């Protein structure tokens, strides 16, 4: 067998609407994800709500990340290197669950999103 058959990541086809959180994304999103990871702690959540700007500065968010957080735009956060597991903790601050977050990314209502989920079981 040839030595050159192992580079699978380069030849894997893109999966539409799907973002692989790999090393590149993890480096790009480090500050944003680190901030969201801090939201495991209730005091940090309160500190963020008290002064969002200061909190984002403390974690050194990039302009792109800051804008995505400011706009509560999950897809933009993902494009800025966000990982959904950490972003979910950010969404949780506003009482949003994974269905709210899913609907936002699909650009549909939460009701329509719930119907979509259910329809796939039929």
């Amino acid at each position, binding site marked *: 067998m040839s030595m050159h058959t192992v580079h*699978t*990541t380069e030849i*894997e086809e893109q*999966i*539409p*609407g*799907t*973002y*692989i*959180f*790999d*090393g590149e994304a*993890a480096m790009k999103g*480090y500050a944003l*994800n*680190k901030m*969201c*990871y801090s*939201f*495991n*702690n*209730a005091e940090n*959540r309160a500190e963020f709500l008290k002064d969002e700007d200061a909190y984002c500065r403390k974690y050194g968010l990039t302009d792109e990340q800051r804008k995505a957080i400011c706009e509560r735009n*999950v*897809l933009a956060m*993902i494009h800025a290197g966000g*990982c*959904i*597991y*950490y*972003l*979910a*903790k950010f*969404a*949780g*601050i506003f009482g949003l*669950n*994974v*269905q709210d*977050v*899913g*609907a936002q*990314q*699909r*650009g549909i209502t939460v009701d329509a*999103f719930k119907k*979509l*989920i*259910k329809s*796939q*079981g039929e």
Partner: protein
Amino acid sequence: MARIVGGLTTSHIPAIGNAVPREKELAHDPYWEEFFAAYPPAREWLDRVKPDVAILFYNDHGLNFFLNSMPTFAIGAAPEYRNADEGWGIPTVPPFKGDPKLSWHIINSVARENFDLTTCQEMLVDHGFSVPMQLFWPNHSYGNVRTIPVEINTVQHPLPSPARCFALGQAIGRAIESYPENVKVVVLGTGGLSHQLDGERAGFINKKFDLLCMDKIVNEPEVLTRYSIHDLVRDAGAQGAEFILWLAMRGVLSHKVRKIHSSYHVAISNTATGLLVLENAA
């Protein structure tokens, strides 16, 4: 000698963490009825086999581990594991007992088979661990079972391949079988089935693929180990790759198993739920 009595699989969706304390009142709730109805046969089986130890393959979702240091395979070696605030408000549960002696036996045994695990003397366990424990030992009745968390990275790619996770399970199975103490061990694979939380494809579920996985994992798990992570992401969704945790569980069991119970339901939250009870061949 230690004996592996069988394996269980279950989804570990956070929403279940909120519902589980209200299981009785939700028994006739149209949303939860079918989901909770699947669990009593699994609990009855546990009552019958009475395991002393539960080994859980699960993934941390950003409670204990962050990207600053992200192990691929981590194992708990602590006398106790605590649950903690994950940020979005599921109630925390009482601590879980550990079995550090068996943990170190596994760590030492699998190292001889070239599995070098990250060892954790402190480890917070998140919903990936606590939800299955609550489902199988309701009302926090897990006080009599010692636990060992085996955490597999599903957060940051590259994730370990299905074949590698299955092989890790096999090595852990051999480790348990060489443990001289008289303990009965049950092994849990948690997470899945198909779901995707991020991207424009969020909400993706693939019933056909899930049912194939639930079928093949019983008697032909090798078929599933031929999938790549990319295959799993494509066919089961970005977070459906958690199926590697089920394969690790299956690796621990004997080649032949008996299916005691199974259930599949679409969906709780964004996730197709799957439950399996597999008894090891004697």
